[in-house]
């Protein structure tokens, strides 16, 4: 039987609640436990009301839990906000000097006072972490190892302050009785704890992306933050653009010149980028964009999560053109989707967009499968021609041959619609690209036959692109109904589904990771005669609408959530039961 504990640490912005969570997560991770951590914060730097939620389990986790075992309130009022989510046998720890009453599940623990005694109230978070760790069964030695590592490079005084605070906290926690705890005897493991933002960054680097341009916008910025850390190790350039228009156009320009490039943003920035996506499509220049979604319209909820941009993304920018859209559901899928986006964007010379959201980007979880460099960094540039032509140009005898080949056709008609792609100034052939309609040479023309031929050329790629797309993953082929979703809700859907099955309800799931282009024929075969309950974080059931449009198959029911907060498994379970009239 899996052991599973959810801890919620609440406080004001600037009080360091994430620091407590990070210390706990490290100790648990070292012991081979699985974690899933999320942050809920407001769009402010100080004050207000934030919380960090850490779920710890002996089994792999795909989602946070709504119900709390241990509620840690840094300020008394934080307890009031969250007490309704406490499980029946849950406990609350409040940072206060008040006397504890007997027979209560609320414990007043003087984190601040203990830290003051140890030498500084600043270490109050370490006291809290020590207390919580003692309560869930961690020995002090395990905590000490993490502290040593955490304060490496800091002064001896700071380390000592935290060590003493940790001891005081641990002793405090030992006095609190709590029925659930873990085995902290360290196990050998190769697990990693990773956020979606970091996985996306690593995916780009593993696909040989060398240029990153961005304009800061939550929650898209985190991806670039994670890239910057590697700038001293691998040859990359990261540039903060003056706006999102510049960001996408810089990426376009760099890619045109032969360097793989990425920009990352959220819905509002993505709106500005749509003109650049059109330019990439028209010039057949590969670009990769990450849209980490948040609720809108306009500014909406800047630090919250949602899935409102699916249809906007697949139709973004004026007129029609092929593009790839991916929506990974886990951190490992994020890593792999971003790699795939780069590979396919370059292979087909089309834009590729990876849809994430604040929940996926900012939450961290244990991943036991390895992250590997694959084949996705391999280039599709017509480089052999570049080299051989440079050699030819040294030889005056082959001048004739050369002058014939000087007319390089950047948009040459081919069976696949894909023209051999060269980059400027690397061969005798001139590379000419324009956002206007153009002929094979890349010169603008308004000729109507040419216009039709060029639209057809760009769309010729579509059937091949469809073949690159995975069909949705299906669990339990003979289920009474299928919880159907896409992207970051994957973990919650899976957990809810398994829970329902344990209760004897014949539920399955269908989860989309590769979104667009969609092969409607194949998808119809896959979905035929299946009853779908859509689970989406938007109000109009966008994937459900898309399925209906592409296959004629209508969904049976939908569970939609648009309050800006993640979809918890418990929420899905509750709603499924409502739908079933139970």
């Amino acid at each position, binding site marked *: 039987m899996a052991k599973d504990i959810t801890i919620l640490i609440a406080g004001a912005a600037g009080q360091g609640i994430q620091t407590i969570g990070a210390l706990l997560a490290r100790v648990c991770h070292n012991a081979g436990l699985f974690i899933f951590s999320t942050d809920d914060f407001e769009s402010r730097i100080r004050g207000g009301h934030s919380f960090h939620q850490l779920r710890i389990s002996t089994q792999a986790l795909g989602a946070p839990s709504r119900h709390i075992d241990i509620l840690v309130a840094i300020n008394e009022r934080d307890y009031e906000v969250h007490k309704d989510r406490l499980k029946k046998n849950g406990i609350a720890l409040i940072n206060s000097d008040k006397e504890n009453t007997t027979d209560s599940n609320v414990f007043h623990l003087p984190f601040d006072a203990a830290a003051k005694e140890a030498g500084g109230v600043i270490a109050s978070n370490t006291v809290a972490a020590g207390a919580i760790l003692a309560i869930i069964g961690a020995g002090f030695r395990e905590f000490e190892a993490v502290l040593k590592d955490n304060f490496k490079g800091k002064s001896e005084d700071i380390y000592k302050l935290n060590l003493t605070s940790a001891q005081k906290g641990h002793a405090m926690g030992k006095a609190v009785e709590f029925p659930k705890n873990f085995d902290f005897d360290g196990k050998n493991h190769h697990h990693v704890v*990773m956020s979606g933002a970091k996985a996306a960054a690593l995916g780009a*680097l593993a696909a040989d992306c060398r240029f990153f341009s961005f304009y800061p916008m939550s929650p898209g910025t985190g991806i670039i933050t994670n890239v910057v850390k590697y700038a001293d190790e691998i040859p990359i350039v990261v540039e903060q653009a003056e706006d999102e228009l510049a960001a996408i*156009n810089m990426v376009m320009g760099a890619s045109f010149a032969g360097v793989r490039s990425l920009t990352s943003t959220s819905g509002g920035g993505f709106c500005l980028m749509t003109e650049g996506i059109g330019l990439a499509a028209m*010039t057949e220049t590969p670009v990769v964009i990450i849209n980490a979604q948040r609720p809108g319209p306009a500014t909406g909820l800047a630090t919250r999560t949602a899935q409102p941009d699916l249809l906007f993304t697949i139709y973004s920018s004026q007129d029609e053109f092929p593009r790839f859209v991916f929506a990974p559901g886990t951190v490992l899928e994020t890593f792999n989707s971003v790699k795939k986006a780069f590979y396919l964007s370059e292979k087909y010379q089309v834009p590729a967009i990876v849809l994430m959201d604040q929940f996926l980007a900012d939450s961290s979880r244990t991943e036991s499968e390895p992250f590997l*460099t694959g084949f996705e960094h391999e280039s599709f540039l017509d480089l052999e021609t570049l080299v051989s032509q440079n050699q030819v140009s040294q030889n005056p005898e082959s001048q004739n041959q050369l002058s014939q080949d000087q007319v390089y056709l950047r948009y040459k008609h081919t069976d696949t619609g894909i023209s051999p792609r060269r980059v400027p100034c690397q061969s005798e052939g001139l590379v000419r690209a324009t956002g206007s309609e153009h002929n094979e040479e890349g010169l603008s023309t308004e000729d109507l036959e040419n216009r039709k031929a060029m639209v057809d050329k760009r769309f010729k790629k579509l059937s091949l692109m469809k073949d690159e797309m995975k069909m949705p993953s299906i669990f339990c082929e003979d289920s009474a109904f299928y919880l159907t979703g896409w992207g970051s809700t994957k973990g919650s859907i899976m957990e809810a589904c398994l829970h329902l099955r344990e209760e004897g309800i014949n539920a399955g799931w269908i989860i989309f990771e590769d979104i667009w282009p969609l092969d409607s024929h194949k998808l119809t075969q896959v979905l035929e005669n299946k009853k779908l309950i859509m689970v989406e974080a938007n109000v109009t059931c966008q994937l459900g609408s898309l399925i209906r449009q592409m296959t004629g198959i209508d969904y049976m029911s939908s569970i939609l959530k648009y309050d800006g907060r993640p979809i918890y498994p418990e929420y899905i379970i509750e709603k499924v039961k409502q739908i079933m009239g139970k």
Partner: protein
Amino acid sequence: MATTKFDIENENQWCPGCGNFSILQAMKKAFIAQDLEPKDLLIVSGIGQAGKTPHFLACNMLHGLHGRALPLATGAKIANHRLNILVNSGDGDCYGEGGNHFLAAIRRNIDITLLVHNNRVYGLTKGQASPTTALGRQTEMQNKGTVSSPFNPIATALVAGAGFVAKGFSGNIEQLSGLIVEAMNHKGFSMIDIDQPCVSFNKINTHLWYKERVFDLKDSSHDASDYEKALKVAHMGEDKIPTGVIYKADTLAFHERFDVLNKKPLFDYEFDKNRMDEILRRA
């Protein structure tokens, strides 16, 4: 002008008599003077009559969207700083739609040459006021006269910190081609704001109007290394229009500020799979 290797068999779409023809001629002259080949050049442009320039030249070309030529060129230069990049833009493209990018490109000091075809009017969209149209000037759209003061690109570039600022005139090809050579050889961002007539939509600032006003700074006591003097030149007004190099200073180009680029262009690096695997192992 005799035929050159930069000529191309592509129908020119400009109006007969347009100042753009002279600018195109000055560009070709400048390239030949530097012994450049078409394959050595990447010309990036935005939208407007100026944006069409690379279509009428043998060169590598990236003809992008309205206002966005500078970010495109910036990206291409970061990817491969060995590329010789020029940008053809107009007063609407560069100072209107692309105003923010103009300031940012100067601040970055990206090593490209910007040629702004400044005819003080929107040509491609048929005669609306541009950012450089004089205050009160009537157009079909601004039929009671423009209500915004004109943008001063030279003064703005100087204040933003540009290291090479020059003014050209389409009526003086000899001088203009010399300025283009000098701008291309300048390390860092260089710009030439080029006065030109629009024969179709600007009946005030005609070739003759300019001809009566322009003078070469070489024939004055101007010192292009003197920032204060440059600022004064930038504010001389319209009665006499100074042309030539207004300001020039040694600067550190954008790519020189990156260790990774000082070694070699980003494009030249090989993907290091072992290093990447090592990074993933400890992630």
